[in-house]
């Protein structure tokens, strides 16, 4: 019960901070417990009662988005009106372009997604020789393909590509994730660097995002779509979050997962790259954590038949999965977030997420150390075989 409950509450309060988050968390938790108690009195098992309570509460995203309108968005607007210094997020560009954005930076945060006024951004990029049009930005053909892949309930939350991706305060906004994908489709070099202050470089243009003053939780900045950007900028093409994919083993009898170990926020995470499983232009990732003596690759929607991994002398490991008669892996890719509460873990039964939560205690977010721009490979211990 506790696990399901916490998962729901974590999702419902995503994007909130401090006392606001704790406040909403407690209220929802009390409601759930009362609903559970009533259902139990009618003879439901605890599991049934919890499931019923969570179903009655509805989609946790509805709560988080509603609360963001109350707490996060007004703050973003207020800060942007006050001026650039100390704003929720600062967007700066070098040289001439800097002045363009320094005066108009009404950026907003929407529970994990960062949006930029598209006209402002496009003008600034143009000054750096990055020629993207509004039309191109809005009509990336892959966007339409992506939408088709999303489950029906998710599609209703996505604005179609022939209109602005998002309108906030009457200003069309562009998701940086989207910008990065379009820029890449136009063969502009894209880089992502920084940790406490995220830097996104498109050609010569440099976008620097600073956190809230005093903010130590970067989950919002780096989770969900933002982490996809990291992956994209690392040379990976992703298709967006929560995208169901059937992953056939393409022209290979076996699927290889080649992985490296990361030290991240004091945790050991293992990122495995799928080979022979995706089209050449795509790269899928699996995420695991090291627990106890063994290495656990947690991928609830993936069906492994191999339970061992060889670690080479360079620390890279390779997990080989026979393609088998089915010949495919089924999962939700890319993995974009891992919630870590005590132990790093994959959260959300709807898919694999890979991200940054380091909630050492409720409401207490750990400091994240600077992370190099790419997913720097740390290593597993050479020469060892880890049993899964």
């Amino acid at each position, binding site marked *: 019960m506790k696990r399901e409950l916490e998962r729901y509450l974590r999702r419902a309060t995503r994007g909130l901070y401090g006392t606001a988050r704790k406040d909403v968390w407690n*209220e929802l938790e*009390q*409601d759930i*417990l009362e609903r559970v*108690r009533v259902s139990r009195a009618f003879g439901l098992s605890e599991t049934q009662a919890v499931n019923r309570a969570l179903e009655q509460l509805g989609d946790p995203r509805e*709560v988080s988005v*509603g*609360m963001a309108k*109350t707490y996060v968005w007004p703050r973003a607007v207020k800060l942007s009106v006050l001026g650039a210094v100390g704003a929720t997020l600062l967007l700066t560009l070098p040289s001439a372009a800097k002045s363009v954005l320094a005066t108009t930076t009404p950026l907003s945060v929407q529970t994990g997604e960062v949006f930029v006024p598209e006209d402002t951004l496009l003008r600034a990029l143009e000054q750096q020789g990055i020629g993207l049009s509004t039309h191109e930005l809005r009509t990336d053909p892959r966007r339409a393909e992506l939408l088709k892949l999303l489950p029906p309930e998710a599609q209703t939350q996505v604005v179609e590509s022939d209109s602005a991706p998002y309108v906030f305060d009457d200003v069309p906004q562009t998701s940086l994730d989207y910008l990065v994908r379009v820029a890449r489709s136009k063969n502009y070099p894209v880089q992502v660097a920084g940790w406490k202050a995220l830097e996104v470089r498109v050609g010569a243009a440099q976008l620097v995002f600073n956190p809230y003053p005093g903010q130590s939780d970067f989950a919002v900045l780096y989770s969900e779509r933002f982490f996809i950007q990291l992956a994209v900028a690392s040379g990976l093409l992703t298709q967006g979050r929560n995208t169901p994919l059937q992953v056939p083993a393409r022209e290979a009898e076996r699927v290889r997962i080649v992985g490296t170990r990361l030290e991240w926020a004091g945790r050991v995470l293992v990122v495995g790259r799928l080979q022979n499983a995706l089209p050449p232009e795509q790269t899928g990732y699996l995420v695991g954590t090291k627990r106890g003596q063994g290495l656990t690759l947690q991928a609830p929607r993936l069906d492994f038949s191999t339970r061992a991994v060889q670690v080479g002398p360079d620390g890279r490991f390779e997990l080989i999965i026979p393609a088998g008669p089915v010949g495919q892996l089924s999962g939700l890719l890319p993995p974009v977030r891992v919630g870590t509460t005590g132990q790093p873990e994959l959260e959300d039964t709807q898919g694999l997420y890979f991200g940054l939560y380091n909630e050492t205690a409720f409401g207490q977010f750990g400091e994240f150390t600077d992370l190099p721009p790419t997913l720097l490979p740390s290593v597993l211990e050479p020469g060892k075989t880890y049993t899964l």
Partner: protein
Amino acid sequence: MAMDPNLLKGNLDLIVLSVLSEGPMYGLRIIGEMQSRTGGYFDLREGSLYPALHRLTAAGMLEVEYQPSSVGGAPRKFYRLTEEGTHELERKRRAFGEFVGAVQALGIVQKLGSAK
């Protein structure tokens, strides 16, 4: 008949303030009151209610007090109308009454009824 979510959305503040005019309540109790008093017509979920409660509180229409929880854990958060909220409720009631009067003057309700 199923509730039209747009009608609820447009009048959510009025409905919440009206329920709370009966006395302080916590979120789930408000939902229960709305259901029981309307025969289940208003089936509001937490996802809609809590953002409204927090917004109304931030606007000074509601204030909160904490009471021990009957199910254990953190204290329950009760909402109640402030003086400003009471005035706002009266204003909204008048506005809604005028709207209903105008609708009746147009014969919309009668037409719907006679169409059955």
